[in-house]
């Protein structure tokens, strides 16, 4: 049937045609069209007859009670900050530290740069610097308190400072993706698909061919050979789209299907590499080996 004919049938069914003559003529001339009209009319009338349903009073009371109980524990809604906003203090701190090291190295030429690093840390700490700068200072001072010789202490302190800063970063963003991926990979390896947020898994679940093509594209781009799609998972973060739906993509059927897991050896998931593919961009975002 042509689009125009389908439009006529739908219009006639819904009673929205100004002039029904063309549609009626179509029905009269073709049993196939008449049959389609009857089917559409049967379903439409049944659905319209069902009509909208309202909450009853006890349901309404329960809804309000439950929502308000939950809302009392939640902060007021606020506009969302861009992702980079959370890293601004860290970046600012790093810039201050790096800039100060460069300047002091230039001015003090020859002095142990690691010792200088400790001094900068102290000055930033006392000056109420950014969170990361404070961390740097705290780590360095801690080493000095424990240590004895300033230059040796400084050397260790610099190493520890770097480590401490690296450890601080996940605190700035508690949902560090790699942690989430590796923990999800562990669930997949153990067959805990519910924990992993699996929508489909194994060879027998039907998968949209478009998603398979996306995974193939990601594997080729990453230079990974012999991998096959094993599972499709819910998005692993809690971010939402503009419409507020958690982990949604563009269609309802794939509403939470944001990640795929591919492996070269689905028969032995305990040891096989697992590649996580972002299905929005068709790229490998994490490889668990």
């Amino acid at each position, binding site marked *: 049937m042509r689009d125009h004919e389908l439009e006529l049938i739908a219009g006639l069914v819904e009673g929205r045609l100004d002039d029904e003559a063309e549609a009626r003529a179509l029905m009269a001339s073709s049993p196939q069209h008449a049959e389609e009209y009857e089917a559409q009319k049967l379903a439409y009338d049944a659905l319209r007859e069902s009509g909208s349903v309202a909450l009853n009073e006890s*349901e309404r009371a329960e809804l309000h009670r439950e929502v308000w109980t939950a809302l009392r524990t939640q902060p007021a809604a606020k506009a969302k900050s861009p992702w980079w906003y959370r890293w601004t203090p860290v970046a600012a701190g790093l810039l201050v530290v790096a800039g100060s090291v460069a300047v002091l190295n230039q001015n003090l030429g020859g002095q142990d740069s690691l010792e200088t690093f400790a001094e900068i840390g102290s000055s930033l700490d006392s000056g109420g610097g950014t969170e990361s700068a404070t961390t740097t200072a705290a780590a360095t001072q801690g080493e000095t308190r424990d240590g004895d010789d300033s230059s040796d202490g400084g050397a260790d302190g610099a190493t520890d400072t770097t480590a401490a800063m690296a450890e601080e970063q996940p605190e700035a963003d508690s949902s560090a993706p790699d942690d989430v991926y590796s923990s999800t990979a562990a669930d997949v390896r153990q067959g805990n698909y519910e924990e992993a947020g699996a929508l489909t898994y194994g060879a027998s679940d039907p998968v949209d061919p478009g998603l398979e093509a996306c995974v193939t594209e990601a594997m080729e781009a990453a230079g990974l050979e012999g991998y096959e799609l094993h599972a499709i998972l819910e998005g692993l973060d809690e971010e939402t789209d503009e*419409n507020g*739906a*958690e982990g949604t993509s563009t269609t309802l059927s794939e509403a939470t299907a944001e990640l795929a897991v591919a492996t070269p050896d689905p028969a032995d998931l305990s040891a096989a590499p697992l590649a996580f593919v972002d299905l929005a961009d068709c790229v490998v975002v994490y490889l668990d080996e």
Partner: protein
Amino acid sequence: MTTAAHDAQLLARVLEGDHDAFTQIMRNHEDRVFSVCLRIMGNRDHALDATQETFLTAFRKAGQFQGNSALGTWIYRIAVNTCYDQLRRQKRRRVDPIPDHVDPADHLAEEAVESAGLRPEIQRALAALSDDYRSAVILSDIEGLGLPEVAEILGIPVGTVKSRVFRGRRLLAQHLGNQNQ
């Protein structure tokens, strides 16, 4: 003042910390959200859970609403996604590790007939439809929303809505016909 303008004012108050304004938004939309969820989930208890989750999500995400659509449309979209998320969770809870075949249709059909106040044969027929078709016919033919609004809620083009509604009705008629035989 139009409903949309009134909703926008209420939302602005919510963002300023006025929880009573959120109550008003909830009152404006709770029946339709519940109705959509009931048709999708086929069970009043589950529909009520989904309605609660919808409004909690709407509250949490109120700051992300950009006003590109009516507030109601945004809330119904959250509702549809919430309902399908809950159905998926139910499906996952029902399966044992690594099944060879997963067929949620039977479970959905069983639950569908539990829904109070709905004609069981229609709810069974609805439950037998795929998610795509079911949501399109529910929003269009039961809730009576216009095609552009259905398109916004589902995040698909209007032409796709038309096609899903048309095919959904045809499949529904087949199921209703089979049940009557």
